């Protein structure tokens, strides 16, 4: 890890990087991405991640595809599809594949920023036409990616979201496309080991508002921002 990594040193920077800098973040380079490693102003983030933490993974790779030909095309790339819409599946390479409807997929890389699935799919986007009835969606540009984790995450989400996301009602791998603090977003529950974890994909242009709203809702449960180092196994 290089402690002098700047949030602006990579091609893509998070919309939240000024907030991270204000919180005393140290950044780290993962693949082509620069993400928050940890915050110097916080205590033990590993413990925090078990209770309540919010991490920004917006610079990690992701991409989307939609159209009637998408499921067959994805299968031809070796992607294992979730059986039904609003279900997600983690692939062997760590890629999160979220099926947002019968014909729409969202792919997000593993926490190490690596994803063979996304690399293969992205390489094919440059081919025109992609495949019959398959259209690519620039999810890295259009959507931010936050992870809210820890045992108090459901209680926090209950303050800002109308869907019941408690673990016994919302199983690991389920997806809710809904309103979070009045911002439209996609919530995917994908636990890391024992840690309860919700990925939130939302419009990148309003992520600063969502970040502030979530931290505000988390304050009641002593939640804080955490870096990617705390999310590692």
């Amino acid at each position, binding site marked *: 890890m290089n402690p002098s990594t700047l949030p602006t040193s990579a091609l893509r920077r998070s919309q939240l990087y000024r907030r991270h800098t204000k919180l005393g973040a140290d950044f780290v380079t993962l693949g082509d991405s620069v993400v928050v490693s940890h915050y110097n102003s916080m205590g033990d983030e590993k413990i925090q991640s078990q209770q309540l933490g919010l991490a920004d993974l917006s610079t990690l790779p992701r991409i989307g595809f939609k159209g009637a030909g998408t499921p067959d095309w994805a299968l031809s790339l070796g992607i294992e599809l979730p059986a039904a*819409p*609003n279900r997600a599946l983690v692939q062997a390479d760590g890629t999160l594949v979220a099926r947002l*409807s019968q014909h729409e997929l969202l792919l997000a890389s593993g926490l190490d920023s690596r994803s063979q699935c996304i690399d293969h799919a992205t390489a094919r986007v440059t081919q025109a036409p992609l495949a019959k009835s398959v259209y690519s969606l620039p999810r890295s540009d259009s959507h931010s990616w936050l992870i809210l984790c820890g045992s108090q995450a459901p209680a926090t989400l209950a303050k800002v979201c*109308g869907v019941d996301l408690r673990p016994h009602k919302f199983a690991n791998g389920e997806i*809710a*496309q*809904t*309103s979070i603090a009045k911002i*439209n977003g996609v919530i995917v529950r994908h636990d890391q080991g024992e840690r309860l974890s919700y990925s939130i994909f939302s419009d990148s242009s309003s992520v600063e508002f969502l970040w502030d709203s979530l931290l505000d809702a988390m304050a009641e449960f002593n939640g804080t921002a955490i870096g990617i180092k705390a999310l590692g196994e």
Partner: protein
Amino acid sequence: MKLLTCPLNGQRNISEFTYGGEYHQMPDHQQASSREWAEHVFFHDNNAGIVTEWWCHSASSYWFLAQRNTISDQILRTFPADEIFNQRVDFAPAAEVSSDATPATKGESR
């Protein structure tokens, strides 16, 4: 809060949805007159009773149809649009264009 059941996402607060207007069957595009097209695109029946309407779940941009009683404001049924739109319609170019509809050529005064 009123609730509406999205065929894709299930029951949600009505604030997550956007109304998209009445559903009308599209006229035969090969035969329809301009009048029929204008009625299809711009005019609403505004019936009192059970109507079929377009609704969109904003968080997932998912368009679907709902049967609603406009007198009691009761939603009777929601269903995916492909229950009705199950065949592709290929719009062939118009066979002929009348002479008075020919656009002015470049540089010609109007």
